[in-house]
């Protein structure tokens, strides 16, 4: 074998292996999509067909018309958008404060944020429940949103901070000599430079809140105020639900994940990496 063909062979091997490895990673997602989009007869065919051909929107339509999933879809979208926006604003201010200012409590603040970042939600859910009932915030979106912000903010602060820190000090000094106040450097310099970071943390925060199950499941009592993941889990426990209904509902919860995976790849990888390494 010549050296050249050996090289080619190796390249092919690596790429082939990568394709093979993708199969177990993507199969559960494929199977969810395929199962949810089948007709009531073909979903329970034995043995199940790996590549079925009679697709139908029967179950997807059914979860919307019969089980009113549209309402919960709206709840989830509204809450996630609102909470993500608040989280980003608060986190940007904090990260900006840490990068651009010097004051005594600075390190304490930053350390406490890092410390809180480690907290698993289950650990504090009982205390939060107590607090929320004391403040009469139980069963309100207000209370739920506050919790979302508190849990998603720490990683957001860290990500924004690491993007802000890449801005050269000279640029800020130059801007201040030109008469820009310190506060104005945030919208004029910091945010424009850190726009990819903002997009990445925005997406990660949105997904974190969208996927969150525990907080809403504990703090919201009225069924019509619940978010999508909570109601889907609830569907799965009901006796009158068919497998197809449950799967179609699970598919609807995944929609934003699919959208981000398709259209915001770049930011996603950036956001995840920041989160993984900083964490």
């Amino acid at each position: 074998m010549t050296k050249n063909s050996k090289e080619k062979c190796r390249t092919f091997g690596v790429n082939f292996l990568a394709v093979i490895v993708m199969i177990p990673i993507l199969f559960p997602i494929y199977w969810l999509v395929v199962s949810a989009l089948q007709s009531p007869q073909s979903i329970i065919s034995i043995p199940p067909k790996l590549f079925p051909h009679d697709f139908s929107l029967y179950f997807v339509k059914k979860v919307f018309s019969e089980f009113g999933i549209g309402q919960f879809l709206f709840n989830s979208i509204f809450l996630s958008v609102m909470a993500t926006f608040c989280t980003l604003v608060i986190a940007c201010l904090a990260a900006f404060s840490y990068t651009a200012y010097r004051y005594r409590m600075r390190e304490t603040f930053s350390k406490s944020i890092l410390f809180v970042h480690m907290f698993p939600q289950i650990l504090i859910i009982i205390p939060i429940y107590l607090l929320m009932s004391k403040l009469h915030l139980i069963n309100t979106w207000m209370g739920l949103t506050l919790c979302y912000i508190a849990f998603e903010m720490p990683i957001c602060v860290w990500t924004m901070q690491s993007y802000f820190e890449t801005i050269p000090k000279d640029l800020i000094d130059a801007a201040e000599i030109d008469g820009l106040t310190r506060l104005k450097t945030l919208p004029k310099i910091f945010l424009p430079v850190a726009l990819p970071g903002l997009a990445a943390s925005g997406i990660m925060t949105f997904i974190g809140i969208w996927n969150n199950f525990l907080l809403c499941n504990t703090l919201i009592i009225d069924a019509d105020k619940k978010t999508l993941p909570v109601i889907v889990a609830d569907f799965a426990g009901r006796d009158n639900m068919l497998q197809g209904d449950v799967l179609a509902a699970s598919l609807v919860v995944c929609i934003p994940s699919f959208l981000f995976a398709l259209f915001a790849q770049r930011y996603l990888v950036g956001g995840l990496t920041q989160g993984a390494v900083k964490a």
Partner: protein
Amino acid sequence: MKKRDDLNRGHALEKRMGVQGFLLYLPAVLIIFLIILYPLIYALCMSFTNYRPTVRNVSIVGFSNYAKILSDSDFWAAMGRSLFFTITSLTLQIILGLALAQLLNHPRLKCKMLFRGLAITPWLIPTVSVALIFKWMFNDLYGILNFMLVDIGILDKPYAWMSGGKTAMFILVLANIWRGTPLMLTMFLAGLQGIPGDYYEAARVDGASAWYSFRKITFPLLLPVVMVSGVLRFIWTFNFYDLPWVMTQGGPADATTTTPVYAYKRAFSSYRLGEGSAISIILFIVLLVFAFIYFRAKKYQDKIYK
């Protein structure tokens, strides 16, 4: 005299700037305090009472909540299950993540971004959906994986995975590995990209094998990254509630009742919030031990990278 004035004005400006910075950080700190730190302190107080929403007169019961929980064999059994769940999940996630990172960082690989993008999608899927997909794939009547296993000849006939204690735990761990490996992968990829290519070049010139350069270059340089996020992943996986809850609700017969599921059931099934608070505090103390290790590891990492 004029110079002195300037100096004073400079000081005043510095001070004002400091206050401004402080105020900008304040909303973040206030929310954290209100939602996380204050409830913890409140729970600490509550854990010494027999508080229940329905009971009028709350009395102080000292350490009896703690004693009750620490002497409950179910609690220790749940801790054991959590430990098993965490260690098996994390070990396999690390091994798979490392292997995958090596592959996806391979110089000969085409369309790197595409593969990386695809590989992280499991992490984006909501836990609730993950739980339901895996339950469906291993369904005793229609589960596709059951039929595949029969086809390959591993099983004689479809098996009811979710009704056996050990097999239910197996599916739980499997689902968690599938879901968590992408995060490990991104972490390792970031770490790998930080290793200068010259090192490998030099090793190759010296005639080192791929395995040797993995052991002597990749592994030691990745270790700090692994340590820091490993501790954090450990804490989170140990306290992972959503997946077991949606998948099995702790069943069958408590076989998948990990510590968080136990804590949740105990606090909310009968609303014994005094006892629930005591569990939170116990878990918090466990967390502090890990936090200590985490900050140690982080210091070590920072030292290496600077």
